[in-house]
């Protein structure tokens, strides 16, 4: 039944460049190149005419076209502008799917009733989209979504039944359009002499599966023109979120729990009606004065009670945090800290907890953040005792608060404190900095075992503070003095090296000098001097 999966794919060429131009309010004639990890990943037509190619570095791009705007890639911008732009399509077609920022798919059977033939349908959709957005769209039609995506890259229509022939002529690198991380797999295919999709499709499916696992199986299916897993339709945003506004603001956890249970039951009914399972939920709490707290939780067996528990924990932690005057101290898991911090009452020592508790929470919202089919949510035979572990850790979260149980992740950064990303158990990690990007000047191995941030004094002979200059230290450090008053002699120290980060943005720019010292007790410490003060930033334990 190839007619069922026949798909129209519309894609905006060089979408990251188009999105970045919209974000920065540039005219369409301005050459724009988008940079990620030091390489150009997209350039618009004027920039390409000037000679900028994908893969150039920043210097090469600036050399070829000095007037080009070179902007840093932002995934958020890509997604935001695209979903806003294609809102016009909601009125035109019943079902469509956003495949990636810049690319969307429309099943052709949704169009067959409204339009005479494929050409008329494509023309109507494109002219409507261009009229509202002003972007250029490339259409592609084929019997499978994968083939249609390749066809859209060169704006072609593959006649019905010819998709297999069309695919077999494509180079193996065409698998990259799926957006999956298949670089390694494609490399292996090329080394094995499989240069085209046809060569891959000619292999036996069972052999490919046993050698390359599920990824190879999927690549083989795509290459041989078999329909992929069904696409999930674009959900109207209001569908899977529920909200309740409280008449009287409250801080009572029993009241909140009761409301949350009703709200959660409502949401879960809607999710089940769509034949789906919700595995992550976003809880949105609002208090008077535009303060809000938003967290995403992963829950193994999503029930009303589990959601109500998470909401209660989040509310208690948030209210306690708001009541406390904000201290300068850092807390673990700060990456997920509360969004809004009370900033009013400049001369006040901090908002009075009593005062706040009279206001309380004014609105609750639940959003189904991740949906899968029931098959995707079942436990696998290979996850060893996860259920028991989950149970234990949730019990600890119930006793000591959600932030007491943290799982490690890495994010980008220069110092160990910046690369740390401790996320509460069952919450989605949100790295603030890209770990894949290059971080010139980041600390190499061996790295400190624990992270610290204590202001210390580093003294040279005669008790004079040690200055740091780009060329090196002002004097040889001899003693380190901790804020507790204890001092330790420094027996050896490394060369100092300066790191300048965020120089392109004055609000984030820091200049620091890093130094490793070994004290007389044999302990090694990592020190960093920022704006005239030495800090102990890590210990080797």
């Amino acid at each position: 039944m190839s007619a069922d999966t026949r798909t129209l794919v519309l894609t905006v060429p060089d979408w990251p460049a188009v999105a970045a131009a919209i974000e920065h309010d540039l005219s369409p004639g301005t050459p724009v190149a988008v940079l990620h990890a030091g390489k150009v990943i997209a350039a618009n037509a004027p920039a390409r005419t000037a000679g900028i190619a994908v893969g150039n570095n920043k210097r090469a791009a600036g050399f070829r076209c000095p007037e080009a705007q070179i902007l840093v890639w932002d995934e958020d911008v890509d997604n935001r502008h695209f979903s806003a732009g294609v809102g016009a399509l909601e009125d035109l077609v019943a079902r469509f799917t956003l495949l990636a920022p810049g690319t969307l798919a429309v099943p052709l059977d949704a169009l067959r009733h409204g339009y005479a033939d494929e050409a008329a349908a494509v023309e109507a959709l494109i002219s409507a989209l261009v009229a509202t957005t002003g972007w250029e769209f490339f259409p592609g039609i084929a019997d499978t979504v994968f083939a249609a995506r390749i066809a859209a890259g060169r704006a072609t229509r593959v006649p019905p039944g010819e998709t297999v022939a069309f695919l077999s002529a494509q180079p193996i690198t065409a698998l990259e359009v799926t957006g999956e991380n298949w670089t390694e797999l494609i490399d292996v295919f090329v080394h094995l002499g499989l240069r085209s999709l046809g060569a891959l499709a000619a292999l036996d499916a069972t052999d490919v599966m046993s050698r390359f696992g599920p990824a190879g199986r999927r690549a083989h299916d795509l290459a041989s023109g078999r329909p992929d897993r069904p696409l999930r339709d674009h959900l109207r945003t209001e569908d899977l979120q529920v909200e309740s506004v409280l008449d009287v603001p409250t801080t009572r956890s029993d009241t909140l729990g009761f409301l949350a249970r009703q709200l959660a039951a409502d949401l879960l009914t809607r999710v089940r009606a769509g034949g789906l399972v919700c595995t992550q939920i976003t809880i949105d709490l609002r208090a008077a004065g535009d303060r809000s707290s938003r967290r995403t939780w992963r829950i193994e067996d999503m029930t009303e009670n589990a959601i109500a528990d998470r909401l209660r924990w989040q509310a208690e932690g948030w209210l306690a945090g708001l009541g406390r005057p904000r201290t300068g101290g850092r807390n673990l898991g700060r990456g997920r800290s509360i969004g809004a911090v009370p900033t009013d009452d400049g001369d006040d020592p901090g908002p009075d907890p009593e005062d706040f508790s009279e206001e309380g929470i004014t609105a609750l919202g639940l959003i189904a953040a991740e949906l899968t089919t029931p098959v995707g949510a079942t436990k696998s035979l290979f996850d060893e005792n996860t259920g028991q572990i989950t149970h234990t850790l949730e019990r600890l979260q119930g006793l000591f608060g959600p932030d007491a149980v943290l799982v490690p992740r890495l994010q980008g950064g220069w110092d160990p404190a910046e690369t740390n990303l401790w996320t509460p158990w069952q919450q989605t990690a949100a790295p603030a900095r890209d770990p894949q990007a290059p971080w010139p000047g980041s600390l190499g191995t061996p790295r400190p075992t624990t992270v610290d941030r204590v202001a210390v004094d580093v003294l040279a002979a005669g008790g004079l503070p040690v200055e740091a200059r780009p060329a090196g230290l002002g004097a040889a450090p001899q003693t380190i003095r901790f804020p507790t008053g204890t001092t330790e002699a420094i027996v050896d120290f490394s060369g100092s090296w300066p790191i300048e980060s965020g120089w392109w943005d004055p609000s984030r720019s820091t200049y620091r000098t890093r130094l490793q010292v070994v004290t007389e007790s044999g302990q090694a410490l990592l020190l960093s001097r920022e704006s005239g003060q030495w800090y102990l930033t890590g210990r080797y334990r």
Partner: protein
Amino acid sequence: MSAAPLVEQLSREMGISTATSLFDGHPPRPVHPVLAPIFRRGGLPRGEIVSLTGGQSLSCALATVAAATREQKWCAGIGLGEPAVSSIADLGVDLDHFVNLVTPPQDWLRVASILIESFDILLVDPAYQPSAGERARLLAKVRERKMSFISLTPLQGSTEQIEITDVHWSGTDHGHGRLRSCLVEARSQTGVHRFLLPGPDGTPAPASAGQDAVPGAGPSAEPAVGPGPEQRPVIRSVS
């Protein structure tokens, strides 16, 4: 002839304290080959408390649990402060099977007793010494669950004591170079061992003769001294 010396020897060298444990057959958890000689049975024992103290003890403990976490065993840290994720990953720990607990220090025993139920390895820096009764109960639970418990401060009732007696960092030279590796001297029931932790690539490495180019570092290139494995009495089967 009394059997007492043999029983004593069995309990000391093989961790066999009761007759039934002979049949239990719980092999120790695998550890990095450089660290294996420190342990009496060549790996991280199960059902016992190991105390690991001195400089670089946290690195040593993380390196010890690394191989087990890569075999899908879960490890939790209590009272460790804020460990640096980059160094945890460098030492080879699987980040998907490591959890750090940030709980009040006075609650460590309660947290540990909850975690013992399902975790395979606990890495604890106890904030206080438990009372005799609490200790006995903790030991019983550890033994019953056959889990591994590593304490970073001396804890009474531990059956393996590893003490890092000397650390020597190399790579820095009074304003030149950077830290590269650390030569560690550890004393355990199996003798005195020297190895690099962390080595040049962040993982444990054997101490080589060429590595020890620091003047005045002592005779650390020599083989391990003290009651080494070759001097120990050997149990022979009797017919």
